[in-house]
């Protein structure tokens, strides 16, 4: 235990910079994943046939072991000279994040009480007004739950991305293993977990703040 604290205090600046790398990697991936996943999820509610296909594809992607996906990204992205590092990691994380985000958004919008949707239509709301005023506010908890799942998932998988040179806290774990430095491994593991917990709780807070009171 004291060894751990000792290690952390000695290597603090490195740990910090790995943490920042990790946050950047996951942050960028998530923002893009949300920008794709949420609108797509919403669109899918209007296209049942596509929904089935997309959700199936997304769920297959999620079954691909992360290390395998990272591996496969290297030769593919080498074609555009981006085989290692940030880009393949970000792409992989975006892919992994899609299923929870799309599925939850889709379910959230779809699960809005049909009566409520009917009432909104009957009142003369346009499709867009309905989405903004009724469907998204009411689906928000579920949509955010998807984002949270994706975040926790991405933070964990981000640690594996270190093997393809994307940096981040995975480097601590991996170097720790190869140097037989268990404090380093532990630090990496704890840091990743704490990061995941903080991100999860922060998103939960955001979710609370933005979820209309009547829906909570």
């Amino acid at each position, binding site marked *: 235990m004291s060894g751990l604290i000792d290690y952390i205090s000695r290597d603090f600046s490195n740990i910090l910079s790995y943490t920042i790398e990790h946050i950047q990697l996951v942050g960028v991936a998530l923002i893009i994943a949300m920008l794709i996943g949420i609108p797509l999820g919403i669109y899918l509610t209007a296209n049942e046939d596509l929904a089935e296909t997309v959700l199936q594809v997304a769920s297959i992607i999620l079954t691909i072991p992360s290390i395998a996906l990272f591996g496969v990204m290297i030769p593919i992205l080498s074609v555009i000279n981006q085989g290692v590092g940030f880009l393949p990691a970000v792409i992989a994380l975006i892919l992994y994040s899609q299923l929870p985000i799309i599925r939850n958004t889709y379910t959230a919008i779809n699960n809005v009480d049909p009566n409520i949707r009917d009432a909104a239509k009957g009142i003369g709301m346009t499709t867009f007004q309905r989405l903004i005023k009724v469907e998204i506010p009411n689906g928000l908890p579920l949509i955010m739950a998807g984002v949270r799942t994706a975040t926790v998932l991405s933070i964990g998988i981000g640690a594996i991305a270190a093997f*393809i*040179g994307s940096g981040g806290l995975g480097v601590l774990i991996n170097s720790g293993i190869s140097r037989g430095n268990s404090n380093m491994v532990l630090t990496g593991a704890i840091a990743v977990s704490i990061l995941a917990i903080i991100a999860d709780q922060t998103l939960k807070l955001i979710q609370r703040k933005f979820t209309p009171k009547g829906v909570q």
Partner: protein
Amino acid sequence: SSGDQVTVGAKNFTEQFILAKMTELLLEQEGYEVEMRDNLGSTALRQALENGQVDVTWDYTGTGLVTYNGEDPIADVDEAFARIQEVDGEQGITWTNISEVNNTYTLVMREDQANELGIESISDLSDYVNDNPGEFRMASDAEFANRPDGLPGVYETYGFEFGDAQVIEMNYGLNYDAIGNEEVEVAVGFSTDSRIPELNLINLEDDMDFFPAYSAAVSMTTEIYEEFPEMEEVFQRMADILDSEIMAELNYQVDIEQRNVDEVAEEFLQESGLLE
């Protein structure tokens, strides 16, 4: 040339982290802005270099010749360096600043067991394995187990083979733990790795001179070389003061004393007068 951006690459073992860190410190002192891309496997790093995702890295002549270019191994240090300069030169990669560090692969055994069984060289090992098939297990990282200058080449040269289940592959670094804990009888080591003496392991003699020279040298894209020719001089300061013993000592500080890479690199450069 302040604000010029250089990406320094490194593989996934301690020596590489140290070399990369030193490079970073020196370049930053010269006003470059340095980015790191570390924790890569040899060939992945090489690929990144070819892609231009990495500009500069310390690599090993033997690795360059055999693994990257499929050439025959060359035992002579200078010959090897000249050859790799030539071969890679044609592919837009420039090698410079060869150092006295020779970090060759080595097969290691526990000293007591080796003495007991009378194994001193790889040939002895070969005989033993051939006489007692299935007895010895070997720990190796994935690279060595599959590189042409790794196990396959050793098998071919020395005429023996471990069974499939006998070779246990693991993250580099753990192989020392494996052999130290007597979970295997043979392990691959890097000759500058301080864990070899620390764990009372002995290097088996490469009596058929299979392993080439693995002199550490700078490998960079010709593009960056031409853009910042003055970098060669900076790296030369490093190459001048490094040799295998010093490298082993630095590795020792990180791997055994568990000091942090940045500290070790910085302290060493400062003590050598290369860094303020």
